[in-house]
């Protein structure tokens, strides 16, 4: 080592991006001195383009250490010990890339020779990744290889449906093309958050927009059991009891509908833009016009029921009316013809639903004082500015600056349906849905895979609503033989059934089935012949993790793309060192409107590029894809997929053709050069065609994106559509049909889930449900597990695969609780537990230990374990000795809701085992 810092010979700044989480990409620059990456900085060229002026979050600062980490896998390796198990040494032996790729290709070819599907109809090839699928933003042309392959199984999740906003995704897309939901933060005045930890999970733009909003004076009410990062900066923290959020939301609906009254709500919006006036018949389906089969509403002008799209009507919002003639259409085309039938409006049924759900009732359930609920509901309405408009780019758009947002385990798992419906209804009542200042959606994956611009998916569908495709549940359409191991096409029709939509099926079901713990009447599926694992670690990140490893040990062939050794690739047969964030190339869309708080006023493309050559023997994914495509004889198909839109944009489009010769092998530079040209051509309408070298030099290219595109309302209005709320007729019908199908095939083990398909969500006492399920499934007394164990978002660690990065640990440790278990100080002291003591946490399935981190800002009946630890193999992380919630959370079919999701928490007991060390 030299004595003093050497005088740098060559110093440059290289532009690239970080997409370690869905809030990306964060564009950044890396300083490279004499060929060594030294530091990360924001990309200041984006000032004014990017909502946070090109700043980057804390995670990219870990990338330099990630690059040079001595613990990296340096060369491909193969297992020499055929026995797989947690306590078996895999006997890793370094091999060449040639050998590694030959082994993998041989396994792929063997599988393909048999058939891409196995005898159960499941794909023989499976691919798993994590990070809410953000690893796809790192995979270069590899997805093209997968799609060239044909059916591949993505059901072996790394935590999806448990670690995600599942009910919100499903219903959000149905109702307002909202795979994710966010406030129009730059304009919102009053925001109610039920456990949404946006300051830890909202990325750079989320943090910046909320900070700006606070300074501007936005009120943010935070309901949550522990005072999170976000709660810290909220106007008010309401320490709500776990899993009782829906009670408070129902009570707010009660206040709005029974105390405040319709006249102070957005009558016009309810009448014209929702299904509120649609009349519901005695069988629970819309009363329809016998001729046109269109849903009926009651016209106050003519005093009779008319189809919903009749012009010049004054539809009744409340009331029950007798209709001369109407039909109802139920499940499996069952229909009822009625004479003089009574029909009640959907809004009236909603009002009735919440009639008993008073703030006083909710107080007993949630610990939220009735006065608080009432005050907040009133303030919410008062801030809605009903009747006001804003003009955006010449278009008049309603201005309703109020929003409600939900957090994880509020918006998924049991109770998720109630919560997502209730908070969306709060918005609907004041017309604050998809308009300026209000609650917005972003991104579509189910209605169409356009995560950057959801407006492309708005089409006219049935009954005055947007079109939306569910997996068929009809006799003819339903698939009784699942196409993949979690059976999303068979069990969860809302999750869709194309290859991308597999990610929204219940991945818990897949693992449970492999462990023979679910779907008892179905055969146990085979593990995939070839399982690819990339940028994820399900043996740590999913639930009941001890059993996850056991399941993986039985897989015949696992090919892991690996950064370091970890708890999942411990079971692999071949591991291949991946090029990390700063070592690989990919062109990616930026801007537009996507995910959390990421509505921009520009859109375009940015290049991720290798700022230094890959370390050791790591390889870029596109290179790997090329090699495997050739070895598996899929080169032409692979090139064709790339020419399609396999790298993000078709290479041939209106007025341009940069497509590749499909018969030839192309270097990754040739591929990205073509993609760069196509993307820039498309972006600029052919005015500028920018090649790979241009993007390497300049990093990104954008064009303006109108704020009008942030809102769905104008598109709804233009098509004279209605938001499909409050009544869920389609969902109800689908549930009935699904029940019929399952029962016809002898499936009775999904009945608990089927019961969720009600047209209006029924409030459930979830704490009682949990006690029941614990006793039913685990042979224990529920009273012995009096605490809720929850997790909390760590901005420093989440999704970054950086638990082995020293600097991330160092800076994360400044945020309270990363090194142990957060517990209420008063409660702990009453139990004889002092700060720093070692405590043992026991759930019905497992125990773990950790250091007590005492604080006042957490409910006495709740404990928190931040992030995801519990590593036993990952270098560096395994020595941190930190507890993991995931080991303690049971995987069980009973915990899965109708949509396939379950929550990220469990009931536990606490015992002090020793003094601080």
């Amino acid at each position, binding site marked *: 080592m030299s004595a003093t810092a050497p005088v740098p010979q060559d110093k440059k700044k290289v532009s690239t991006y970080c997409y370690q989480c869905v809030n990306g990409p964060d564009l950044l620059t890396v300083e490279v001195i004499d060929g060594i990456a030294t530091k990360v900085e924001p990309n200041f060229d984006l000032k004014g383009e990017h909502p946070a002026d090109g700043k980057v979050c804390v995670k990219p600062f870990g990338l330099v250490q990630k690059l040079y980490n001595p613990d990296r896998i340096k060369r491909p390796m193969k297992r020499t010990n055929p026995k797989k198990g947690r306590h078996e040494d895999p006997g890793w032996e370094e091999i060449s890339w040639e050998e590694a790729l030959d082994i993998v290709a041989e396994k792929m070819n063997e599988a393909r020779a048999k058939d891409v599907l196995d005898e159960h109809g499941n794909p023989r090839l499976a691919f798993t990744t994590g990070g809410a699928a953000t690893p796809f933003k790192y995979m270069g042309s590899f997805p093209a290889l997968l799609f060239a392959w044909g059916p591949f199984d993505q059901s072996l999740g790394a935590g999806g449906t448990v670690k995600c906003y599942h009910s919100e995704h499903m219903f959000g897309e149905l109702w307002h093309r909202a795979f994710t939901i966010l406030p129009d933060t730059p304009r919102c005045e009053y925001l109610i958050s039920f456990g949404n930890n946006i300051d830890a999970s909202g990325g750079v733009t989320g943090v910046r927009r909320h900070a700006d909003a606070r300074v501007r004076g936005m009120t943010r009410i935070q309901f949550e059991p522990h005072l999170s990062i976000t709660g810290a900066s909220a106007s008010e923290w309401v320490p709500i009891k776990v899993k009782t959020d829906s009670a408070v939301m129902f009570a707010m609906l009660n206040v709005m509908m029974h105390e405040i009254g319709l006249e102070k709500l957005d009558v016009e919006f309810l009448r014209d833009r929702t299904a509120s006036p649609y009349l519901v018949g005695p069988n629970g389906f819309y009363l329809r016009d016998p001729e046109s089969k269109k849903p009926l509403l009651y016209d106050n002008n003519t005093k009779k029921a008319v189809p919903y799209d009749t012009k010049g009507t004054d539809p009744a919002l409340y009331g029950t009316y007798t209709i001369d003639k109407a039909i109802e259409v139920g499940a499996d085309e069952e229909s009822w013809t009625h004479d003089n039938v009574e029909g009640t409006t959907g809004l009236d049924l909603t009002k009735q639903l919440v009639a008993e759900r008073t703030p006083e009732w909710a107080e007993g359930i949630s610990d939220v004082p009735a006065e608080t609920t009432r005050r907040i509901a009133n303030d919410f309405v008062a801030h809605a500015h009903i009747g006001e408009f804003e003009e955006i780019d010449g278009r008049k758009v309603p201005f309703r600056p109020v929003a409600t947002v939900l957090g994880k385990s509020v918006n998924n798992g049991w109770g998720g349906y109630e919560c997502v419906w209730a908070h969306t209804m709060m918005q609907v009542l004041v017309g604050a849905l998809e308009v300026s200042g209000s609650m917005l959606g972003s991104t579509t994956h189910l209605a169409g895979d356009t995560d950057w611009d959801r407006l492309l998916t708005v089409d006219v569908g049935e009954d005055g609503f947007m079109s939306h495709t569910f997996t068929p549940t009809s006799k003819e359409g339903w698939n009784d033989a699942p196409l993949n191991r979690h059976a999303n096409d068979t069990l969860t029709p809302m999750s869709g059934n194309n290859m991308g939509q597999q990610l929204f099926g219940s991945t818990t079901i897949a693992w449970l089935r492999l462990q023979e713990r679910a779907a008892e009447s179905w055969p146990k599926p085979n593990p995939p012949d070839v399982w690819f694992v990339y940028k994820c670690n399900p043996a740590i990140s999913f639930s009941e993790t001890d059993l996850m490893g056991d399941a993986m040990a039985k897989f015949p062939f696992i090919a892991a793309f690996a950064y370091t050794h970890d708890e999942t690739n411990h079971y692999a047969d071949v591991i291949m060192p991946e090029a990390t964030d700063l070592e690989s190339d990919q062109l990616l869309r930026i801007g537009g409107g996507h995910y959390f708080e990421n509505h921009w006023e520009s859109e375009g493309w940015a290049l991720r590029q290798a700022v230094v050559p890959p370390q050791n023997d790591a390889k870029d994914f596109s290179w790997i894809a090329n090699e495997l495509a050739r070895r598996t004889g899929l080169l032409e198909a692979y090139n064709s997929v790339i020419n399609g839109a396999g790298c993000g944009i078709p290479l041939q489009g209106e007025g341009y053709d940069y497509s590749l010769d499909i018969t030839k092998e192309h270097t990754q530079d040739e591929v990205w050069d073509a993609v760069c040209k196509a993307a820039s051509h498309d972006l600029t309408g052919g005015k500028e065609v920018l090649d790979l070298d241009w993007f390497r030099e300049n990093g990104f290219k954008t064009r303006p994106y109108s704020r009008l595109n942030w809102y769905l309302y104008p598109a709804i209005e233009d098509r004279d559509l209605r938001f499909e709320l409050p009544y869920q007729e389609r969902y109800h019908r689908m549930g009935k049909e699904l029940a019929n199908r399952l029962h016809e095939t002898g499936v009775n083990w999904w009945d608990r889930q089927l019961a969720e398909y009600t047209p209006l969500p029924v409030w459930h006492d979830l704490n009682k449900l949990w006690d029941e399920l614990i006793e039913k499934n685990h042979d224990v007394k529920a009273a012995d597990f009096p605490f809720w164990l929850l997790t909390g978002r760590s901005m420093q660690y989440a999704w970054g695969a950086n638990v082995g990065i020293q600097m991330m640990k160092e800076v994360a440790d400044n945020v309270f609780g990363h090194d142990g278990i957060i517990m209420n100080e008063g409660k702990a002291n009453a139990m004889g537990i002092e*700060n*720093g003591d070692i405590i043992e946490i026991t759930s019905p399935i497992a125990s773990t230990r950790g250091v007590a*981190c*005492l*604080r006042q800002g957490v409910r006495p009946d709740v404990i928190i374990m931040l992030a995801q630890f519990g590593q036993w193999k990952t270098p560096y992380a395994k020595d941190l000795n930190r507890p993991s919630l995931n080991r303690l959370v049971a995987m069980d079919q009973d915990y899965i809701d109708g949509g396939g999701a379950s929550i990220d928490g469990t009931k536990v007991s606490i015992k002090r085992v020793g003094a601080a060390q």
Partner: protein
Amino acid sequence: MNRFGSKLQTHWDWRAAGNFMFGGTGCGLILMSAAASYPNSLPLALGLQALAFIGLGLFLVWLEIGRPWRALHVFFHPQTSWMTREGSVGTILMPLALAGLFMDIPGLVALSGILGLLYLFCQGRILLASKGIPSWREPAVVPLILSTGLSEGSGLLILTLYAIGMAPIQGWVFFSFIAFLAFRTYSWTTYLGKLNGSKAPKKTLSILNGINPLMLWGANVAPIALLLTSMFISTYTGLLSCLAAALAVAGGWYMKFTIVARASQVQGYSLGKLQKGRPKMKAPVRRKPDSFVFDQKYEKENA
């Protein structure tokens, strides 16, 4: 949990504490022995012992510093810091005392005794200037350091005189020892009282209050009582006064070790009093790095 970041400073450990313990004792000893012997020669054993204590203190500090071979820098800047002043006083004191001792010049010895007092004062001021540590920055720490140095020096003088067989000891030495102990009692009580009335960290207070009984009764009142008793029971004068001296010295060391190495919690962070309006700031006090060394470095870099 240290909510607001109050925790024990670990930058100055037992080595730094050793400087206050032994340096203080050595200074007290050189002063008292000079006074006790003047105008006669100071016995070599006494003088060397005092200098050894001061030297040991400085050596321990030297062990603590990160760049020990640059330690000389300290001696070039008496104007800058109480630490440099301490060092400068030490640099004069040592040769002066050695010259006095070996050349048998009682005047020089007496002068070094006075410098010892100054050295003690510097030590007090070193602590006082440490604004990060509430138990040090308390102004009452200065008389405490002075009084304990003098008490320890007197005690050690008595012990040594007995040890080298130079008893009986002049009466005023006893009386001044009692007076210094009384001064230390007062200083300690005042110091503790002031701290208890301040917003010093709880941990600091609990440690200091924890040693208070031992300090007050064991290290101060008991020696005074023993000394007074010894005046009346002449048979045991030697034993009792030696016991008193040992208690005084050990107590002083224990107290200084505690203050420097154990009860030295930083104050932690806090929010402050809210203000409004654009502030008018004082001009920075400013001090440039030493021009002599700076210029040398500059020349070196540009050579």
